[in-house]
């Protein structure tokens, strides 16, 4: 089962086992949620927004290793970023998991998600938490869902 380590890199397994910022955020002024109806995965994201800066972010929920690790990595990577900066990071991630290409920017620990590209059914898992967080930060109250075609 060697090829699985492409997908389940040690960074992923680590974030899955010990997800970072896995808690309710008492200071949050935005809450977002996401679900993957086909899998039953549910995620809640808590965002503290100062101006257009995500000064803090956390999450809770149930999901597979990929979605949990990706949401955990999301909190680590978005904390302290402005919304445009967060959008740019997500754009890089999205490109990576859909095309397999790592962008020019250094993706640092996010590169652990590059293997998702080879598992198209799991792309939704890798983006769910990010959708929920960005929607919340932008004040879109609708739950993020993975079911929009083409996503």
């Amino acid at each position: 089962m060697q090829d699985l380590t492409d997908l389940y890199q040690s960074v992923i397994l680590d974030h899955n086992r010990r997800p970072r910022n896995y808690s309710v955020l008492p200071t949050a002024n935005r809450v977002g949620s996401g679900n993957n109806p086909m899998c039953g995965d549910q995620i809640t994201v808590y965002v503290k927004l100062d101006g257009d800066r995500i000064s803090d972010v956390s999450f809770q929920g149930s999901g597979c290793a990929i979605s949990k690790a990706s949401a955990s990595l999301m909190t680590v990577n978005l904390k302290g970023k402005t919304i445009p900066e967060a959008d740019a990071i997500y754009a890089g991630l999205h490109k990576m998991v859909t095309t397999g290409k790592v962008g020019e920017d250094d993706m640092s620990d996010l590169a652990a998600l590059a293997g998702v590209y080879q598992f198209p059914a799991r792309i939704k898992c890798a983006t769910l938490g990010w959708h929920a967080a960005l929607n919340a930060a932008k004040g879109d109250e609708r739950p993020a869902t993975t079911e929009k075609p083409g996503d």
Partner: protein
Amino acid sequence: MNQAWKNIRADFPILDQQVNGKPLVYLDNAATSQKPQCVIDALTHFYQHVNANVHRGIHTLSMRATFAYEAARERSAKFLNAAESGEIVFTAGTTDSINLVANSWGDENLKKDDVILLTEMEHHSNLVPWQLLARRTGARLRFLPVVPGDTGLLDLAQLDKVLTSEVKIFAFTHVSNTLGVINPVTQLCARARAVGAISVVDAAQSAGHLPLDVQTMGCDFLAVSGHKMCGPTGVGLLYGRKVLLDAMPPYRGGGSMISNVDYFESKWAPAPQKFEAGTPNIADVIALARAMDYLDDLGREAIALHDEKLASLAYARLAAEIPGIRMLGPADHRSGVISFDLPGVHAHDVVTMADQEGVALRGGHHCNQPLMRKLGLSSTSRASFYLYNTEDEIARLVTTLQKIHGFFAG
């Protein structure tokens, strides 16, 4: 005519057979078309290599099936020039598509005394669902007449009178399955929109026969059957403008159309999934996309020209060569469907006799009873042409009808 047209009959294995000792002349295409080998192969390939349930699965076969199924949605959107694939809902066919609109959009939006406008030439499938809706909601039906006489053209001069602001739905056929009339769909959709009505186009007889562009047509909904356009039986689609689909309640309840289910209530998935409850007709959807490829390789402009050329020729020859025949529908600018009446010979007798000569015709009311009554007929005989039909087959038709006429006249 491009290369794909050469040897086109060889693409359809069923055509190469004898019926009652004579080579088959299949002229019942308005009922259902034959299928090219590539569509049959698409089914075989699916069941031999891909078959799995879609959406909920993440193993390899299920991913393959899901991608092929969703690729068929993209293909269908391209076939109709829909703005996005999310505007395509797969259904069991035109009848199912129209019932979907009547039940979901209709029940949600119609009130007592609202008007549903139809035309006098609608197929039962674009009439009965609206009758049922009218009964449920108290809405009223109204009909745009056809002009007196046998051309069967819509009486557009009456449009102002019937298309009033009370009209909430204007549903009409693009091409008549009995008379071969092609209706001015772009104009009708624009007029519907001008009074705030939604337009529902029955494209059962036009999809696969004419180029279709839902954005140019400006329709709100458009219903298609796969089996009449070289695809398998049991599959079709509904095009719906996204903003309308998004606002509509679901049609059937079940798996795959939900976003969350509790024991006492549920939330729906976004369109189009909201309208696709249960395991879809995966194999046939994928084979339908293959039929679209096939038709586009031939070119839908070329198909329309071919249909019209044969139908106009047949119309002219029958009118000239069969004594006493009554031709219905326009002489030209028409689709490949021809209807006629041989006075004194019932359509069923015409069809049974033609069948003895290997010529497959249809006789009856063609799911068009009220129009028949209006024309003073209980049935007609119908010959309908498609891409594999030839001028030689028209000669066979003419000879056969001459014999039938002779038999009954004699």
